[in-house]
């Protein structure tokens, strides 16, 4: 088991190196630090000295790949590639273009993100599985058909509508919870309800439909026919056999996104003014802070790859047919 996990991690390294190179090329080769400096300092009429100063302050004043001006290993280490890209591997994110420590900001801002994403995930999972199971139970009947139609309609509505509508209806019209904002400790609860609810409703359509098909596929399998032939009641067939087997694809699908929960949701966080990593990224995008965006791209990829490894491992737990190697 441990050797398998180690091997998977070693396999993941080339992918991380690939991600690193892609971000490096995007941020430093396609547009040079000079371009960035010009963009920040204001287009054309900017003196050469100001650009040099801007680059000095942010450590972009080194050669890109190879520094011939110094000796020994410094030829490699005193470069933009090493200072800004390779260091990401040890989670040294450096400083943002406005001078703040990115690593510290991330460690502070991941908690509000988790406060939204974790309840959303688990309440959502519970709700969608129940709905999917209900529709599968009533398959072919009017309940099923109208449920599926409702799902398609809800899928076709833009997610922005749910957010804006929810904010207006619950926050502004009914005055039940604040429209947006965040607080520390237990006070955060009232700020969390609305985003979680909106996220839940927004995902109903697609998820319920998908879970329904998973359950229906299970229901057509031989073991279900056997269970019915044995004389088990329909509810027992459903809960004991269909649900447990249908959970395998659902749970492994959830495991992939588990690590990415840290990143939070860009859209929801910025709409509800939650000081999490999602709004951190959005702010960085609108401020054009390349250092933060670069760090978040790398962090997001790392978390996704961890998710992939976890998925492979979790398969071996839930499905004995899957062997390691």
């Amino acid at each position, binding site marked *: 088991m441990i050797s398998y996990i180690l091997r998977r991690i070693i396999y993941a390294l080339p*992918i991380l190196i690939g991600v690193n190179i892609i971000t490096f090329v995007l941020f430093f080769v396609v*547009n040079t630090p000079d371009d960035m400096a010009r*963009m920040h300092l204001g287009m054309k009429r900017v003196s050469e000295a100001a650009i040099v100063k801007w680059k000095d302050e942010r450590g972009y004043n080194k050669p890109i790949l190879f520094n011939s001006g110094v000796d020994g290993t410094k030829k490699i280490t005193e470069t933009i590639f090493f200072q800004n890209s390779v260091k990401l591997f040890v989670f040294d994110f450096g400083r943002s273009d406005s001078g703040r420590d990115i690593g510290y900001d991330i460690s502070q801002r991941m908690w509000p993100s988790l406060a939204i994403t974790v309840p959303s995930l688990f309440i959502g999972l519970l709700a969608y599985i129940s709905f999917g199971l209900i529709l599968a139970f009533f398959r072919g009947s009017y309940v099923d058909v109208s449920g599926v139609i409702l799902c398609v309609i809800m899928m076709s509505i833009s997610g922005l509508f749910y957010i804006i509508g929810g904010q207006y209806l619950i926050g502004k019209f009914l005055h039940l919870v604040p429209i947006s904002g965040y607080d520390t400790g237990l006070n955060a609860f009232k700020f969390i309800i609305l985003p979680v609810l909106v996220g839940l409703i927004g995902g109903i359509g697609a998820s319920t439909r998908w879970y329904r098909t998973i359950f229906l596929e299970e229901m057509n399998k031989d073991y279900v026919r056997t269970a019915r032939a044995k004389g088990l009641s329909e509810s027992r067939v459903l809960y004991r056999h269909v649900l447990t087997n249908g959970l395998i694809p659902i749970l492994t699908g959830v495991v992939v996104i588990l690590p*990415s929960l840290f990143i939070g949701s860009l859209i929801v966080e910025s709409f509800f003014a939650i000081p999490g990593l999602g709004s951190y*990224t959005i702010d960085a995008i609108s401020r054009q802070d390349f250092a933060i965006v670069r760090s*978040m791209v790398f962090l997001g990829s790392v978390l996704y790859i961890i998710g992939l490894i976890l998925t492979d491992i979790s398969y071996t737990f839930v499905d004995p047919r899957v062997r390691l190697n």
Partner: protein
Amino acid sequence: MPVIFITDFLIFLLLFGVIAFFFYGRKQEHLRAPWRDVRKRSLAMSSAVILFFFVCIGLFDSIHFHPKIETDESSEKIYSNEILSILDMLLNDLRLKNEKTYSAPLASYSFSREMIEQENGKQIRAYPRLIYGGTSLNKPESESTADIVKRISLGFLYGLLISAIIINLIIFVLSKLIRASYGVTLQNCLLNKFNTHWLAIFITTLIIIITICIICSLSQNYHVFGTDKVGQDVLYQALKSIRTGLVIGTLTTLVMLPFAIVMGLMAGYFRGWIDDVIQYLYTTLSSIPGVLLIAASILLLQVYISNHADDFNSIEQRADLRLLFLCIILGITSWTGLCRLLRAEALKLREIDYVQAAQAFGVQHYKVMFRHLLPNVMHIVMIAIVLDFSGLVLAEAVLSYINIGVDPSTYSWGNMINSARLEMAREPIVWWSLAAAFIFMFILVLAANLFSDAVRDAFDPRLREF
């Protein structure tokens, strides 16, 4: 003087491709049979009619030109700097009827109060009359409801008349095609005895044409969806946004398709190190969160545009480049799924007898892939195209909201929502921009969803989710 944007060119290339594929597919029984199944479904045919109308509007909006400026001397032609499309000419009424600021749908008065000088010289704060809303009325308070009802019923009657003509025309052409009498054809259509669900098509056409006629009749005297902050007609914006939505939904797939097909087939067919390299490539790309990759790329495009501002002749061209770039980036983030599917399918197909036989005869590899593998994965490609469409249209709105979508000067539903969002705090609220954007987006996406469901079911009932 015509102007051709890159996206215009690609749209017509795509249209040409679709038509070519249609004529190719007509001869292939394995493609015809599933489409016959699609044609039998009422919901699919209704959605197809709706999509057809949207596509028509989008195509009209994709033919651009510099309009001629009217001058007295006929010897010299002068073209304006403005770039218009055929749709702009059709909607000239809507385009030019600008108010000062917000006005509610079907309103005769402005949304906000202003100082008005009365005839006796006194100044009062009141809601001024709109320039183009309810102009024919003397006392809008009492007359406007009656006028609106009159116009709606007039539009309804026109709609009935026009759709009756169109439907009869279709039945007439159909009766000539199947060499039956008009009456028999009509009866068979109504009883739904043809392979195609004509009844659904007729009903949807009827509803759409009546709606269009009612809106036309109302917009002669009112702003049907109100006006926005700078007084522009919201209906016009929503109609112009259709092209953006369609471009994002279709060109993205067009851009990614060659990569996904070539790489997926190569990986599955050759296996070995080629497979490893391609797998590595798509795992790396798909492990970067899509939104962040898009954000990073758009940021870089902004840097590029601001540093090379001189290279672009007009704002429209710059916006068009950004739209195309967005399509490419969305394509890069979304081709991996299709590539993975095609690889798996090619792995299976390469073991099948006819491929083995072709190899034994010494057929070249690329010919085997092109002649034997590609036609057998075409259904997967087609399903991917139609399934991706609605998701991309919705994604555009979200991306525009976080300012990494289309250019702010481009008409798009995302930009409409984004600019209207800030006005939610007003009292009474300005809801019509949001409503128009959401309604148009909803109709397009719902139609696309229903249609793609039917296509997917017809082509591969077992391939439910990917």
